[in-house]
């Protein structure tokens, strides 16, 4: 019997298991337990949620391994953790800890302003952010086994998540409608590997699972992203910065299952307490936008 550990099919496969689910940011083992009990399909272990990273300023780095291990010990669902863009040693450490997925994330301060991690070298799968098809396919080319549209983390404003999802899915529709002889030029214009562009055109979707992230704060936000065509959602600050995290977490999970059923969504959205206090994207200075990190 052949036995291959950490093949691309296996790395991509875990993302396929997460589909139709919600991945929640948690900063303590107690949060992780609440998320699991609410029906999260995975948790993202970190020291501060993006809203606090944004408020605190300074350099944001990989979380303390002690915290990540405690969260791994607490829940039975997959645990993800973030490393800085290009910081392959943080990624090596996270792999050594045994986390289930690494998010090479623009929410942390980038360690390399030209290069991302070469992710094919790892057995642990990676998820990466994108704002358009070119960025998504560059990350997949480097070995990302899952993609999330970036949105703007820590704002509770869904507008950027919508913009990026529409951009990626619109790019794919455009790619599928053009004659084949234009595909090479299109690949060049978006800076994406030609073979992956061809594969995307054939599939009519990204070659890996595509979630939405960055600004999702309500069940309706989550269902909006699902109806636009993503396969699941990340919720960061939106849950544990709200008035009743357990209730809201459960409602977002339900909304992703019944994203196409307005009557169910109406029921699910009732009486959830205060949502997180949002911050309008238009009020944030251009150089403070996290989504611009990544190349």
């Amino acid at each position, binding site marked *: 019997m052949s036995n291959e550990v950490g093949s691309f099919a296996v*790395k991509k496969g875990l993302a396929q298991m997460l589909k139709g*689910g919600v991945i929640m940011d948690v900063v303590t083992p107690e949060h992780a337990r609440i998320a699991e009990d609410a*029906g999260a399909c995975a948790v993202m272990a970190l020291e501060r949620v993006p809203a606090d990273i944004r408020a605190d300023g300074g350099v944001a780095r990989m979380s303390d391994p002690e915290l990540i291990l405690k969260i791994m010990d607490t829940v*039975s669902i997959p645990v993800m953790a973030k490393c800085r863009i290009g910081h392959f040693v943080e990624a090596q450490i996270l792999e050594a800890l045994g986390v289930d997925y690494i998010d090479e994330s623009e929410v942390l301060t980038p360690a390399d302003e030209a290069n991302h991690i070469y992710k094919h070298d790892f*057995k642990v799968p990676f998820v990466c952010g994108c704002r358009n098809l070119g960025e998504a396919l560059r990350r997949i080319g480097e070995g990302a086994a899952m993609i999330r549209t970036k949105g703007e983390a820590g704002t509770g404003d869904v507008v950027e998540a919508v913009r990026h999802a529409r951009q990626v899915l619109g790019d794919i529709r455009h790619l599928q409608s053009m004659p084949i002889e234009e595909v090479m030029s299109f690949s060049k214009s978006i800076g994406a590997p030609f073979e992956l562009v061809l594969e995307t055109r054939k599939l009519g979707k990204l070659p890996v699972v595509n979630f939405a992230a960055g600004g999702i704060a309500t069940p309706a936000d989550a269902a909006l992203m699902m109806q636009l065509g993503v396969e699941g959602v990340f919720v960061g600050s939106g849950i544990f910065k709200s008035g009743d995290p357990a209730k809201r977490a459960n409602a977002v*999970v339900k909304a992703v*299952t019944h994203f196409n059923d307005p009557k169910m969504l109406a029921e699910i959205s009732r009486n959830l307490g205060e949502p997180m206090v949002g911050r309008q994207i238009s009020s944030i200075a251009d150089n403070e936008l996290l989504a611009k990190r990544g190349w």
Partner: protein
Amino acid sequence: MGVRYLPSLIMSYLPSGVGKRNMIKIGILALQGDFDEHQKMLDGLGINTIQVRKSNQLTNLDGLIIPGGESTTMGKLATDFQLMEDLRTFAMRHAVWGTCAGAILLSKNSGHVQPLLGVMDITTARNAFGRQVESFEIDLNVPALKVVDPSDAPFPAIFIRAPLIETTGPGVEILAYINDDQVVAVREDQWLATSFHPELSTDNRFHRYFLEMIQSK
């Protein structure tokens, strides 16, 4: 209801076997997980399918697939939406196949406190092979698949944070082992459970095996 009987009337005039498969309708539990992958596999075999999120979608089905995903998430949602009892009732009378998380939900016990259907006389151990970095692909020997394909080729099995089937009751037929003695695929009456994900491969023999289970009932 009338719509369902009309085609069967037409079918009775055709030679046996022709188009029969098209009559079958399979539900795929779509609370969370890789239900799309199962649906595509069945689409490729010309089977009618429906994604099941509510109890009323279980009517007029010949079988149900519970996909891979997170068993805690699916159990939580099935409980919240009051689906557990209806799924159990359905399973008592119909064919049901669980892959990975689905196999856990069919089992009596998973070693965790979580909602389970518990219809199969098996116990499972979650994440028995370790975390994601230990997930793997392997060629499995599955003699039972000869029913649908005489080739006897090994089955390309993808294990993702996979459960093991730890114990099996007397009525349970073991279909595949890994490492000589660890059970990863079983059948008991109209129920099928696999630790791995045939829906992630391009090999449709397990899906055809499940259809054969339904047709030979």
